[in-house]
């Protein structure tokens, strides 16, 4: 293999805009055949857009795509598949009510009648299982499989279509560290047999662990190209964010007061009976920020939902002031608010606001039946608008137009409005999920300062974030979640990324409490 082959993929000056958002700006890169190439960048850096263009989900406004040195036009996934490109999406493209085989053949059938397709897929599945260690029961319903096996089905689908170029979009987001390791072994096996793998991620560790080369994207542009062997996590991190990674906040020491919220043995089962929260013990004190770190999907979202009253706990209890909440005595979101719990939800579009509502209306979501907005069964428009205008002023929401539809504000301004709404309610307990997701850098610092100010005013704050630096910068105490349990606690000022990382992967054994590891067994 010493002849100089053309690169498997070459992108030349790819440009793509969605309305005013310039997602990709003249991106050029080339990916060597038989390599694992990483594309790294923050959320919103344009990685997924770029790969979606390569896979034909979007068409570039301008630019050129070359596959094996040949210029091609990719207008749909069909074209991409025909050129040997396959993509494993972040959100799986699987049919839950189909078997593994049916999912594999969908779109790659050999003829109008199904049986021969299924038979050839069964043989191929056998072969791929042997070659790459990708083993799945061909007749299992995909909906019944665990997430890691579903991802395997996705990879099998791509391979079954004869893909030589595999794009994986944030594949580890849904995996445990062990499963991620397994995945990487599979990717290496694929590379060793000549496949080209493109790995989109925002996790430095993965880039360093598995790739041969890496492109760094920022604000829609490729800002650097490195051979993995010649770079370091630190350098990549700086290139990614264009600033020092460490978020520095000049923080005063906390004055933690009385417990505002105490959770005892809190547990939650999902509709399939699987424990997604298990034995959570947690105390939030007035005047402190407690951060929750963890790989996304380890129960953080569910914890927020239980604490906010969106879902009642199945076991355990929660005490706020004189009120004790358990499965038999649940408290809904309205009662939680009355108890002084405010909640900035993780997903602002899904929960935080009502897109077609005026900003003034969204600015009192959850407080719409409280004075001064509402009395004697009527709402008071003037009070709503004044309130919203005041929030906009205080939290620098732009434009300052309460009558504008909520959807017409940018993500950062929406987030500021929601935060303003919840802080203005002067809660005793503030739950914040992903405080700065999709928020531009200027607004991040502003939001962090507001949270600190609320803390200093005596509010008990719980912050859940997938951004480890954010958790570290904000928190007075950090709890680490893994598999629905709290597996470790670290004081904010002594926290270091390594320890936290080990805890998040649940491979760190605290010397003082070695028995913690063995309590993970779930009840029937």
């Amino acid at each position, binding site marked *: 293999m010493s002849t100089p082959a053309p690169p498997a993929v070459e992108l030349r000056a790819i440009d793509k805009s969605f309305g005013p958002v310039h997602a990709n700006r003249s991106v050029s890169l080339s990916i060597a055949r038989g390599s694992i190439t990483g594309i790294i960048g923050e959320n919103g850096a344009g990685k997924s857009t770029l790969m979606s263009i390569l896979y034909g989900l979007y068409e570039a406004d301008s630019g050129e795509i070359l596959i094996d040195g040949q210029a091609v036009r990719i207008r749909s996934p069909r074209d991409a598949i025909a050129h040997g490109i396959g993509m494993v999406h972040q959100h799986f493209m699987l049919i839950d009510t189909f078997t593994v085989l049916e999912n594999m053949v969908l779109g790659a059938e050999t003829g109008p009648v199904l049986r021969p397709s299924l038979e050839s897929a069964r043989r191929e599945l056998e072969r791929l299982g042997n070659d790459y260690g990708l083993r799945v029961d061909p007749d299992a319903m995909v909906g019944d499989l665990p997430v890691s096996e579903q991802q395997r089905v996705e990879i099998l689908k791509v391979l079954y279509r004869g893909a030589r170029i595999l794009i994986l979009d944030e594949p580890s987001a849904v995996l445990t560290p062990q499963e991620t390791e397994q995945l990487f072994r599979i990717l290496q096996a694929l590379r060793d047999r000549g496949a080209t793998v493109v790995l989109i991620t925002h996790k430095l560790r993965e880039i360093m662990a598995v790739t041969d080369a890496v492109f760094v994207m920022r604000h829609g542009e490729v800002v650097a190209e490195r051979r993995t062997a010649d770079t370091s996590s630190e350098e990549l991190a700086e290139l990614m964010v264009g600033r020092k990674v460490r978020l520095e906040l000049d923080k005063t020491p906390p004055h933690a007061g009385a417990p505002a919220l105490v959770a005892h043995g809190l547990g939650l089962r999902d509709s399939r009976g699987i424990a997604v929260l298990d034995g959570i013990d947690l105390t939030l004190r007035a005047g402190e920020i407690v951060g929750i770190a963890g790989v996304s999907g380890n129960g953080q979202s569910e914890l927020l939902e239980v604490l906010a009253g969106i879902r009642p706990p199945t076991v355990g209890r929660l005490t706020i002031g004189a009120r004790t909440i358990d499965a038999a005595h649940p408290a809904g979101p309205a009662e939680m608010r009355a108890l002084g719990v405010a909640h900035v939800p993780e997903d602002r579009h899904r929960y935080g606001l*009502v897109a077609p509502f005026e900003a003034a209306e969204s600015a009192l979501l*959850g407080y719409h039946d409280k004075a001064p907005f509402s009395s004697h069964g*009527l709402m008071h428009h003037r009070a709503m608008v004044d309130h919203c205008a005041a929030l906009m002023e205080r939290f620098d929401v732009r434009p300052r137009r309460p009558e504008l539809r909520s959807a017409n504000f940018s993500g950062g301004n929406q987030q500021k409005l929601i935060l303003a709404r919840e802080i203005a309610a002067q809660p005793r307990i503030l739950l914040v999920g992903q405080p700065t997701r999709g928020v531009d850098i200027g607004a991040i610092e502003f939001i962090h300062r507001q949270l600190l100010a609320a803390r200093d005013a005596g509010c008990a704050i719980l912050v859940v974030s997938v951004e480890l630096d954010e958790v570290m910068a904000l928190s007075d105490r950090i709890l680490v979640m893994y598999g629905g349990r709290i597996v470790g606690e670290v004081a904010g000022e002594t926290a270091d990324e390594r320890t936290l990382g080990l805890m998040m992967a649940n491979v760190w054994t605290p010397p003082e409490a070695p028995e913690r590891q063995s309590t993970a067994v779930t009840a029937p």
Partner: protein
Amino acid sequence: MSGGRQPLPAWVDIGLIPIVNVLLAFVVVGLIVLSIGVNPFTAVRIMIGGSVGYPEAIGYTLYYTTNFIFTGLAVAVAFHAGLFNIGGEGQAYIGGLGVGLVLLALDAVLPPLLLVPLAVLAAAAFGAAWAAVPAYLQAWRGSHIVITTIMFNFIAAAVMVYLMVNVLIAPGSMSPESREFAAPGHLPFAHELLAGIGITMGQSPLNLTIVLAAICCALVWLFLWHTPWGYALRTMGHNPNAAIYAGIDIRRMTLLAMGLSGALAGFVGVNEIMGVHHRLLLNFTAGYGFAGIAVALMGRNHPIGIVLASLLFGILQQGGAELAFDIPAITREMVVVIQGLIILFCGALANVTKPALEALFQWLHTRSDNAPAADAAEA
């Protein structure tokens, strides 16, 4: 996401698009009229003359309008809660049953001042109950409200036929109708009321119920946009997750929204049974429930729009009757065709005109250089 599209000016969204859609519907109607050999403009002239040309006609038009307002509001209230109530027909039917039962039972006992409000309440209660069952089944049992309300229309029809044929039929009567109510159970006709203040108007079925319709419009507007329940209802309609987050009880809101919707539809029974027929009979709903969908869609689910749309439908209904009388080639069902086309163009095909107008305004916008503050909102 909002994407990069320039939002349309409010007057285009609220005013122009519905008008364009309605116009498109009428263009198609015109072609159909033309295809059966009638000059559409002649037809329009006859219809307008026949619906607003003389006092009796206006009376008839407003009487039809009253029914359209009720069913239009009924559909709109449910729409705002994100629910599609196709059961207006059945709810109106059962609402009329409520009116009839109260009047048959109490018309000899109670004075009009007690009897009439009681009958109105019965219409609301029966209509609400008939809508509340599908609401309950969706909220608590997960069945789809569209399918259930359709089924409930048929069940209502069967219940009414059974009751009228076997139970409520007037003794000795050949047709399935109840006995006529006593005088306290008749709502005064408009021509009677106007005669009381010295204005003479030809006889028409228009009666006091139109006042109830006007009150309902005002109350629905107040409820939806100026009460916390209305806020909660609209929140649920736009974003059920946000409603849960806000502490709004989705199940109870579903019940409330459908209950209100059913009560409004039930008022058709007041107009028909207590206002016009003065006896319980079959098929008095005559498609008003379904027409309510057209009214709500055309009126953009806003009471003012619904009043305007109802007036138009009232004109069509009355004018259509005159038209069928004058031109034998055209039948009253032409009105049903128009309803169907309006639902098609204002509802199902609503997305066809909007992008075209958006493109047009985008083009106009880029031509004029002044960029309003909406640009800043995207930043």
